[in-house]
């Protein structure tokens, strides 16, 4: 029974795939309706502060919990392929399919990739890279783990939103800054290992080449429409992951103890949300305070931290509010002032 909520995100891709392949015209439209239902459900279902103790979980159950993240990757690939096939139909609406695919990718695919990129296992990290390549955002695997987790809450971190900064100011800063920072991190790693920055060992170059190869293959197989669809769904997914970044750290900063040296990352440096439905859907990403405190803790065991700054609503509602800076500031700025 405790496993059931972790399968909740699979409802959407399976619904879309089943509907499309059985000839239903509403297949991709169902994504919007699903999220509208989730938004209502989130307010109705309330919060859940319970925690799962890893020691008390059977090894078979633990294996299933890991398997959930693995099987997401081929399912997501199947969903994108279905979209690419659907867009070839003259009666299809490319932007609508792109938004639907991008929303599923951003809301579910990226939390899965996020979970996998934090694992030490090479296979799981490779799965994260494959998943992120599907959003044309593979460098996130470097920037997030090696950059964001080290620099969160400091001016060095492009993925920490500053107090008063709107999501529209944050987005270009985080996307461009994140890419540049990932390149710097990778160059520094290669120099430490006495390797050439321009070469096969450079993960950034590998990601770029893989992404170009993927676009080339899609262009050849599905034509211009397929290429456009892939780009649109990538842009929507990237937008969503950056909105998640924006919400999770808005206005929270670490004290500078000495020039360039900051206090340790604590649970005070991320917003926590305990809303049941968001946590089911986003693989416990909204329990972000504990995630930054203990980044390697697997998603089913991420803890609720009562003392951490708490978001006033579920994550989905907060992501929508973030798109409206005056409303967002009206809710969040007093909370930030009270938390710092």
């Amino acid at each position, binding site marked *: 029974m405790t496993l059931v909520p972790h399968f909740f995100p699979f409802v959407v891709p399976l619904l879309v795939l089943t509907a499309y392949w059985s000839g239903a015209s509403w297949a991709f439209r169902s*994504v*919007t309706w699903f999220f509208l239902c989730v938004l209502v459900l989130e307010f109705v279902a309330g919060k859940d502060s319970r925690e799962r103790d890893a020691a008390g979980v059977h090894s078979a159950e633990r294996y299933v919990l890991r398997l959930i993240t693995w099987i997401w990757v081929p399912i997501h690939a199947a969903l994108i392929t279905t979209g690419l096939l659907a867009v070839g139909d003259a009666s299809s609406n490319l932007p609508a399919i792109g938004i639907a695919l991008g929303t599923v990718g951003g809301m579910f695919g990226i939390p899965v990739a996020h979970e996998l990129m934090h694992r030490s296992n090479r296979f799981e990290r490779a799965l994260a890279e494959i998943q992120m390549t599907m959003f044309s955002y593979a460098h996130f695997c470097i920037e997030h783990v090696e950059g964001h987790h080290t620099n969160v809450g400091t001016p060095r971190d492009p993925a920490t939103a500053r107090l008063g900064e709107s999501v529209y100011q944050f987005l270009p800063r985080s996307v461009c800054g994140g890419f540049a920072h990932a390149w710097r991190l990778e160059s520094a790693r290669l120099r430490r290992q006495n390797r050439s920055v321009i070469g096969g060992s450079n993960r950034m170059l590998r990601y770029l080449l893989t992404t170009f190869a993927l676009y080339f293959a899609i262009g050849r197989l599905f034509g211009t429409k397929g290429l456009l669809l892939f780009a649109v769904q990538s842009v929507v997914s990237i937008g969503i992951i950056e909105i998640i970044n924006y919400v999770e750290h808005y206005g929270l900063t670490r004290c500078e103890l000495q020039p360039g040296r900051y206090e340790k990352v604590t649970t005070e440096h991320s917003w926590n949300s305990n809303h049941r439905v968001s946590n089911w859907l986003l693989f416990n990403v909204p329990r972000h305070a504990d995630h930054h405190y203990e980044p390697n803790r697997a998603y089913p065991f991420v803890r609720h931290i009562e003392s951490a700054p708490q978001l006033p609503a579920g994550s989905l509602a907060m992501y929508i509010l973030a798109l409206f*800076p005056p409303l967002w500031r009206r809710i969040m700025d007093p909370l930030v002032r009270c938390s710092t």
Partner: protein
Amino acid sequence: MAPDYGSTGEVFNVKYSRSVFERIFEFASVGAGLAIVGACSYAGYAEGPGFGILLGLVSLIVAAVVVSAVFIVTRTSADVRAIRKQVDQLQPPDADVKVHDQN
């Protein structure tokens, strides 16, 4: 009290001046938000390859309704109320002063 970044308009109930540019940007950002949420709702009932003006308008209205509902419910949540109460207690009642540009 100077803001850490940009202008928040209202921090601790302290109002400070905002440039015309900031006001225009804020207005445009609301339009952008409506367009994004509207596009998402449009994806929920768009049929065929074309774009219908009427459906576009309906999408914007749906977006406005959804965002208003989310804002009202979030603003009335117990957590926000509690924090606002704390903030009000921290702030003296006559703090409605105008702070000019720090430069």
